[in-house]
């Protein structure tokens, strides 16, 4: 209020001036700062927020804890009523027999190969298609994009039968049928082969990935398009002015820019392909091709009947689930930063 009264200036040496305030006492300052309704409100709100967030985090994480705990339990633990979360007789039996008898390693190898190839292909193809939709005007742009959305909305279950038949009797627009003498009797180049049987191979999924029609690819194309819409046109224009072609601009300037977004999409594609049971179930009809889907079973050595065997079986199934997602957890821990950044930057918001 009255600054001059409370401020004393002392002249000590020639060039130094020391200003001395009449400071309000410590307790009074603390009181003014912390004993207010405003501060109280903030504390209550912060508490409420943390209770809520921690509570919901618990809801999300508890199933994982429960599964991990039960995966170390032996049959005795399930009979013992005092054992709930921490096993009394911990064993590695469940892991051991799932690896030994459910062909876990074979399934791991197969699924890694499949998921990796599909995810890499999908990431690049969706980036290319998304770029085409975002930056170029051509006839049918909106119609084609509407079809992308359409492919996102149609659930694959609807197309289950048709998709199976398509790849069981594979033929591109009747070409193979034509070459095999299906149309003209005289023309027979392939020796009577009128269709290809592509089931029990990776080919159907690779083909779907190559054309942007695999699981949720519509979403990825949509995300990439939104991302590229946010990239300023001037960037490419300056590249064009400098004499770079469209392709070179895309591969040398645009692709490096979109790496975080592509990591996001790679993660989605990889993890959704990894846990997929629909496509693997549809295309892999033989039982000797082990995918992640086929390891969810009770190993023979653990298939025993006792009072709590249904619980024990449930625990084994959950252990299978844990072993399926184990590689994904590692991936998620390393990449979750990109995942969330990527989505925030993608501007799905439009």
């Amino acid at each position, binding site marked *: 209020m009255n600054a001059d009264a409370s401020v004393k200036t002392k002249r000590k040496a020639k060039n130094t001036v020391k200003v001395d305030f009449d400071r309000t006492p410590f307790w009074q300052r603390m009181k003014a700062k912390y004993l207010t309704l405003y501060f109280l409100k903030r504390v209550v709100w912060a508490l409420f927020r943390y209770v809520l967030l921690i509570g919901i985090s618990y809801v999300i994480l508890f199933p994982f804890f429960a599964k991990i705990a039960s995966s170390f339990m032996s049959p005795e633990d399930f009979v013992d009523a005092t054992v709930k979360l921490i096993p009394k007789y911990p064993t590695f039996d469940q892991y051991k027999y799932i690896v030994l008898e459910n062909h876990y390693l074979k399934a791991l190898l197969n699924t890694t190969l499949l998921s990796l190839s599909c995810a890499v292909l999908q990431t690049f193809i969706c980036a290319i298609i998304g770029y085409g939709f975002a930056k170029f005007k*051509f006839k049918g742009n909106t119609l*084609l994009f509407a079809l992308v959305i359409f492919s996102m909305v149609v*659930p694959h*279950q609807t197309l*289950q039968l*048709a998709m199976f038949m398509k790849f069981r009797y594979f033929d591109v627009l009747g070409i193979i049928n034509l070459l095999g003498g299906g149309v003209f009797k005289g023309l027979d180049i392939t020796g009577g082969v009128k269709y290809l049987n592509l089931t029990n191979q990776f080919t159907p999924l690779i083909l779907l990935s190559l054309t942007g029609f695999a699981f949720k690819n519509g979403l990825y194309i949509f995300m990439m398009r939104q991302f590229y819409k946010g990239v300023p046109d001037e960037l490419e224009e300056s590249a064009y002015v400098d004499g770079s072609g469209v392709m070179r601009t895309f591969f040398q300037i645009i692709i490096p820019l979109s790496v975080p977004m592509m990591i996001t999409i790679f993660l989605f594609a990889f*993890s959704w392909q990894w846990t997929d049971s629909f496509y693997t179930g549809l295309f892999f009809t033989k039982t000797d091709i082990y995918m992640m889907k086929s390891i969810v079973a009770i190993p023979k050595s653990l298939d025993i009947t006792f009072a709590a065997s249904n619980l024990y079986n449930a625990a084994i199934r959950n252990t299978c689930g844990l072993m399926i997602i184990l590689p994904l957890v590692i991936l998620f821990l390393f990449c979750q930063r990109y995942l969330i950044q990527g989505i925030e930057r993608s501007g799905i918001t439009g």
Partner: protein
Amino acid sequence: MNNTANEKVAKAAPKKKRRIASLDKKKARAGYIFVLPFIIGLVAMYLPIIYDSILYSFTNIKHGADGYQLMFVGLENYRNALFVDTTYVQVLTTGIKQLFLDIPCIVIFSLFMAVLLNQKMVGRAAFRAIFFVPVVLSTGLVAKIDAGNELLSYMQNTDEGISTGAQSTGVSEIVSAMDFKYLFSSMKVGKELVDYVIDAINNIYNIVNRSGVQMLIFLAGLQSISPAIYESCEIEGASAWETFWKITFPMISPMILTNAVYTIIDAFTSSTNTVMSYIDQVYGKTDGDVLSSAMAWMYFIIVIAIIAVVAGLLSMYTFYQRRD
């Protein structure tokens, strides 16, 4: 500007054999090249698959030694699905009812959590990561294992846990429904609403699991709101409550529309959907393949209609900030 200049150039040299394409044409061509994989897939695979799928729903398939034979049976499959199959209609109606009940729950919950996670606090990154765990880890196979998981309900019977995906009995519910009903019955808000809220709370695990992507969409939307608006609001003396309803809510309303549609699509295409799993089950039966096609198409048309209605209703109340 550019267009006309290019056209003039093109007109000026009409007799040259090799015609120089205008920039627009060149770019259009490049656009086609980029989209080419999609077009090939569309023409060579997807559209035939869609066509076949619709066709199959009107036919009967006989698998032979050399390929298969189709017999056109008209609407028989549809008639069978609706009038002969006893469970389909029942599953369909409950599924659609559940869909309608789930949409507001998921949208409101994810908006609320997004607002919370958008505030500055210690450990925000960790919470965000945790909330995103289900999107990556609880899909597909794991979701299938979780559905009807006896283990989790058993584990939680000791501490009054929340029903985690599994069908829970009265013991493991987070709030004792009786207490809650008793509390609210005197407030006269309607029995249905109370039941709905209790169901939602007991089902929190499912809701959290299914609202990961929606939460991120809301988060992205919240971050695109200009801080200047909030600042001016604060200067004018608006409370947090007022700021939410007058600023955040209208600004986020386009994303509410997006999320509502996304939720429907997600629920509709997920493998844990009851209607879809019933259709899967029918697919596995003998001669059930064509029947399941018919069922799936019917369900698809109904859901498209629902999306149209919901999007239409919501877009009436959506606020678009005029940019430029």
